[in-house]
């Protein structure tokens, strides 16, 4: 077991290195010169050279990559002497636009993204699993059709469209909700809740739709298994049969899916945060794209990759504990 985890960790480090290398290569070769961008409109060739040497942009590719990589673990120093700027580990460089540390920028916006992600995840698990179960147990009835049609719409509706639709209906037309504002929970709990309600709903809808489809298929699959017949033949109550024997086999695969989807939320939340003006990591990414702020885009990409890779390992380990066929070797 320990060896398996160790091997997975090594593989994960390899994947992360590859991703960082690819990302670095993309910006190194494909993107316009950052020095020109930093320098601004009134710029002399001398100034550009100066910026280049300060940021280490005049070095060959591998050295730049190495500096970037080692900066993440040990921090790095830009420039020399009195003009030197230090960047503590984990250093992802400085924004071309605001000169802030990318690490600080991301950390500062994490709470908003985490709030959004956790609320949405709770909603979509509830709706997805509930809907899927209802649909499977009432298979072929009006309930089933209603849930599945909603789910089909849910996976077909782009979430920015849903966001605009909700905002237009609930805020502009019906005035049930105020315009979303960036307040913290301690400042004004009600306004905080009202501001996050739509983003949670929008982000959760698509996932809930997908999950209800998957849960329905899994439950119907499980209900057809022979051990369900055994459970009934034992004379167990129908609810016990469903709860104990059908639920666990049907929902265990959902754990894997959920781990990966939750870790991948940085991508999913990007649009939701942008549309609702939530100042999270997703909006930071979208803003940085608009301004071509490479260090920030790169930092977020690496963070997103790291989250997915770590989640992958966690999910595998969790799954081992949930499925006895994997946990216990057969005799």
């Amino acid at each position, binding site marked *: 077991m320990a060896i398996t985890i160790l091997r997975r960790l090594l593989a994960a480090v390899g*994947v992360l290195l590859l991703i960082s290398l690819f*990302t670095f290569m993309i910006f190194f070769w494909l993107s316009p010169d950052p020095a020109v961008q930093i320098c601004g409109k009134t710029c002399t060739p001398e100034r550009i050279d100066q910026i280049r040497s300060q940021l280490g942009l005049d070095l060959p590719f591998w050295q730049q990559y190495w500096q970037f990589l080692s900066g993440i673990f040990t921090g790095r120093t830009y420039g020399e002497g009195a003009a030197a700027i230090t960047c503590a580990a984990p250093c992802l460089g400085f924004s071309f636009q605001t000169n802030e540390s990318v690490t600080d920028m991301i950390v500062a916006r994490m709470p908003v993204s985490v709030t959004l992600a956790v609320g949405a995840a709770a909603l979509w698990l509830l709706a997805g699993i509930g809907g899927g179960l209802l649909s499977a147990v009432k298979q072929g009835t009006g309930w089933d059709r209603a849930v599945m049609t909603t789910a089909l719409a849910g996976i077909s509706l*782009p979430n920015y469209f849903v966001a605009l*639709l909700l905002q237009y209906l609930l805020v502009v037309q019906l005035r049930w909700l105020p315009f979303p504002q960036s307040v913290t929970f301690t400042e004004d709990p009600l306004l905080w809740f009202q501001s996050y309600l739509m983003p949670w709903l929008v982000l959760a809808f698509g996932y809930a739709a997908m999950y209800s489809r998957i849960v329905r298929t899994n439950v119907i699959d499980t209900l057809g298994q022979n051990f369900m017949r055994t459970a009934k033949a034992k004379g167990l109550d129908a609810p016990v049969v469903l709860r104990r024997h059908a639920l666990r086999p049907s929902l265990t695969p959902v754990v894997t899916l959920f781990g990966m989807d939750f870790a991948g939320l940085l991508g999913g939340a990007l649009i939701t945060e942008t549309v609702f003006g939530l100042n999270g990591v997703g909006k930071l990414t979208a803003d940085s794209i608009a301004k071509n702020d490479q260090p920030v885009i790169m930092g977020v990409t690496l963070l997103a990759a790291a989250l997915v890779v770590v989640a992958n390992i966690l999910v595998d380990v969790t799954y081992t504990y949930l499925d006895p066929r994997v946990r216990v070797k057969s005799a």
Partner: protein
Amino acid sequence: MSTVPSELAVETEPKGVLPTGSAPTPARRVISTLRKSPAVVFSVCVIVFIVLLAVFAPVLAAITGWDPYEFDPTAIDSDLGGVPIGPFGGISSSHWLGVEPGNGRDILVRIAYGARVSLMIAVSATLITTTFGVVLGMVAGFFGGLADQIISRVMDFLMAFPSLIFMIALLSALPAGNRPALLVLVLSIFGWPYTARVIRGQAMSLRNSEFVEAARASGARPVKIVFREVLPNLRGTIIVLATLAVPSYIGTEAGLSFLGVGVMPPTPSWGQMISTAVGWYAVDPMFFLIPGTFLFLTVFAFTVLGDNLRRVLDAGDAA
């Protein structure tokens, strides 16, 4: 936003089909089954309508007299910041679906040209990912060994990627150039493993089937077995996967364009129109409702069709 397809797992357990008196050709049977479903008929109508809209976009421009890039200052109220004149976003006999606020471009014509871009990108990406996915999936599944090792590793790597963020990073770094072609490229790079994974699984189970054994025993060359025996058996799966890949690419392309890294202005695109509409949604809701509805209907129609094809072909293939 729907990114690359994540739930394309096609169930392949054979299901018994009651023998019918006469045996119509599978294609005919599939079509006759599908024709009985109102949802499928509706979906096909929507798809046909969108395709016609895309194909005849220039004709539409000629009929309405509006070019997709042509401003119409008479259709907007410059005193009110450029809000369309008239009800429902400026719907009139001259602008059938109204005009864009701010510049007065005709929405219907831009929708039609947007459908062109959207379908072209999605269909091209589907063709590419299906070809690569099927070939690589069959090679990995049928031959196994080192080829399988390499292909599977690459697939794992690409699928472990936070693909949306990475697509954004990649597209934001790439120079303007030919955006639609770049989109097809990026969608294809991250899309093919989802097809290949399913095909690989099926090819692996077909490898040990009796008719493949028989072909092998009769001395057929492996390449011939793959194309003569394995590929025809994957036909149903490939059709389903491709049908479901189209809406996912349409959705992803629209999302990327919405974020400003996809199709660049002035080329019209649905996602980009909705993105522009964000600033106008309170005063001119039609501007996001119209492209949003077109986008939703298109994705919905392809998904319904794909779902139903999967249902019918699964049952049919086992017979």
